[in-house]
């Protein structure tokens, strides 16, 4: 273990750094920031530009009379509200399921060696499958067979997407929580058992609180995955269960003319949760992800 930690440490050459290198670093940072921020800025401004300012050349960098009409239109006239509500419901529910099931599975694997040594990696390997490979079978399953065989309608339902997203989010959740439980000294739970806990109490009172940073990271990932997923949503949820990305795409490809303002407004709406989540969990996120490096 000590060895791997040494290897993980970044090795540097002692001495004064190259000045060229320092300059280069600034250039890279600035270019990259521009790459990131300019489109965001454009979208943000577009969402409040009056219609006539949208496609001018040169572009209007700041509108003279900002408007909120695009937000109103996007949310009320197009599928905005519906998409927002669906996305929130689907992402939240997916997160809860993925975290509960994933944590339980990971705990069982870490503490009782359920499934042997390789199960956790097998879980992760599910992510190697390109999603597009299974879109059609899943579409058929959802649209026809689920109803014929099980009498459950899944196509264009929130439940259908929640189910699917939970399955997709699980590998990562399991893998991450597994790593988390593995590095947690088992003696802590043993001490709890001796102190008078039942197995379940040891899990709830000791293991879970200590795994909280991991749970938060895993939850953030599950949420963002479900919030941004597009491929399956667009195939499986066209009208009723339409999600935000699908609603957004609908505007961009719409025949109703230039909807860039509305699309930008909806984009801004869809950024809010990611932003909030990012701010909320960034500390935990880093800890959760770099766990392997800080053990011992």
């Amino acid at each position: 273990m000590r060895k791997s930690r040494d290897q993980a440490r970044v090795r540097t050459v002692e001495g004064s750094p190259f000045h060229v290198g320092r300059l280069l670093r600034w250039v890279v940072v600035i270019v990259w920031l521009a790459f990131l921020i300019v489109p965001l800025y454009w979208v943000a401004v577009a969402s409040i530009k009056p219609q006539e300012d949208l496609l001018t050349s040169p572009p209007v960098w700041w509108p003279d009379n900002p408007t909120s009409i695009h937000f109103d239109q996007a949310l009320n006239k197009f599928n905005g509200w519906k998409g927002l509500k669906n996305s929130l419901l689907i992402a939240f529910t997916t997160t809860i399921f993925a975290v509960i099931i994933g944590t339980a599975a990971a705990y069982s694997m870490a503490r009782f060696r359920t499934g042997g040594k390789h199960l956790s990696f097998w879980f992760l390997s599910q992510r190697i499958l390109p999603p597009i490979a299974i879109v059609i079978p899943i579409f058929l399953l959802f649209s026809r067979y689920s109803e014929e065989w099980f009498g459950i309608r899944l196509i264009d339902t929130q439940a259908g997407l929640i189910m699917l997203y939970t399955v997709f989010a699980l590998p990562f959740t399991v893998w991450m929580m597994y790593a988390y439980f593995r590095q947690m000294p088992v003696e802590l739970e043993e001490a709890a058992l001796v102190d008078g806990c039942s197995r379940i109490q040891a899990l709830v009172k000791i293991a879970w609180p200590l795994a909280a940073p991991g749970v938060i990271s895993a939850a953030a990932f599950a949420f963002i995955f479900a919030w941004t997923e597009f491929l399956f949503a667009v195939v499986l949820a066209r009208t009723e269960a339409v999600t935000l990305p699908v609603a957004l795409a609908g505007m961009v490809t719409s025949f109703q003319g230039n909807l860039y303002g509305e699309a930008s407004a909806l984009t801004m709406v869809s950024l809010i949760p990611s932003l909030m989540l990012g701010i909320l969990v960034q500390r935990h996120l880093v800890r959760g992800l770099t766990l392997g490096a800080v053990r011992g």
Partner: protein
Amino acid sequence: MAQVTFEKIRKVYPDGTVAVKELSLEIPDGELMVFVGPSGCGKTTALRMVAGLEQISGGEIRIGDEVVNNLPPRERDIAMVFQNYALYPHKSVYENLSFPLKLRKMEKSEIDRRVQRIAQILELEEQLPRRPRQLSGGQRQRVAMGRAMIREPQVYLMDEPLSNLDAKLRTQMRAEIGLLHKEIGVTTIYVTHDQVEAMTLGERVAVMRKGELQQVASPQELYTHPANLFVAGFIGSPAMNFFEGKIEVVDDGLMVAFGDGQRLRVDDAERDFAPVLAGTAGASVIVGVRPEHLEDAALIPETPSDRRLRGLVRLRELLGSEMVVHFEVEAAPVMTAETREIAADVDASTLTELDHMRSNRRTSFVGRFGVATQAVEGTVAEIAVSAGSLRFFDPSTGARITT
């Protein structure tokens, strides 16, 4: 309070490792029993089976009159101190200490009273609001002790509770544990691989080796009458000196001959401990003598000539009150699985040295001499062997030759 009984306890791990073989042992109510032995001998495993943290593969463990084999830890009424303390990192010291009581749904005021009392005994009052990671090693250790002591269990289990402390703190805490035990008198099983800890703390000591119990006895008994070569070598520091010898019957008694024609008389006390020794005449035996029973013969001129041996002085280490002298005696060193294991437990170089000695037919001895000794490095000195200090072991079984 209760006694703890091991009856033919076996433990086989799923990977096939036999960690404990047929351990039978009774620990009376209120006794402090120490399990000692080299690394990997199964001490922790035995302890964890009492705690209920490890499935028992065979046999029966009883606490009081109750067979606990299938009881979960919390129904066994035990408390345990872990080697790495296992303090709950997300709880304050106060919460760590009160956790076992809270689980028992004790009243708040009573919990508070007990926590304060324990904190006072262990001098942790100021640390109560702090988290474990804000504590020093010694403080953590005391919190771990406190969490075990705060309720009054039938049995305390301690797995090397002092091994993470520095030498000074360890000695201090060792004494404190001894005092606490005298005060509260709860049956305790204490695991350590440090034989000094075992000897100073244990009312009785169980010496284990490779999953097998070697001897259970009081520290004094282990020291003077070790059951076999392993116990003799393991208990005592510096370790007992061993060499190969041959028993010879002479007119008025027995002599042990070794090396280049040196002989030592077997005195009456030594013969009393091993009445059948005469029967082994002609065959080789393993002779053991502790460093503290060797002395520079120049300091005790009245030593008879047949209780002296000659050795080449190699190294003198002055320890203030005594002089530890290493010297070489021309005698075949003992190479059995036991002595090798004990040597390996000290460190690998000891083992290499042992191999080297074997090829030279010289045995390295350690003696604890008076500081006045004039024995000079590089010269041959006469060494006196105290009365009643020789022990004899059977080279084939390693058992001490008794009756």
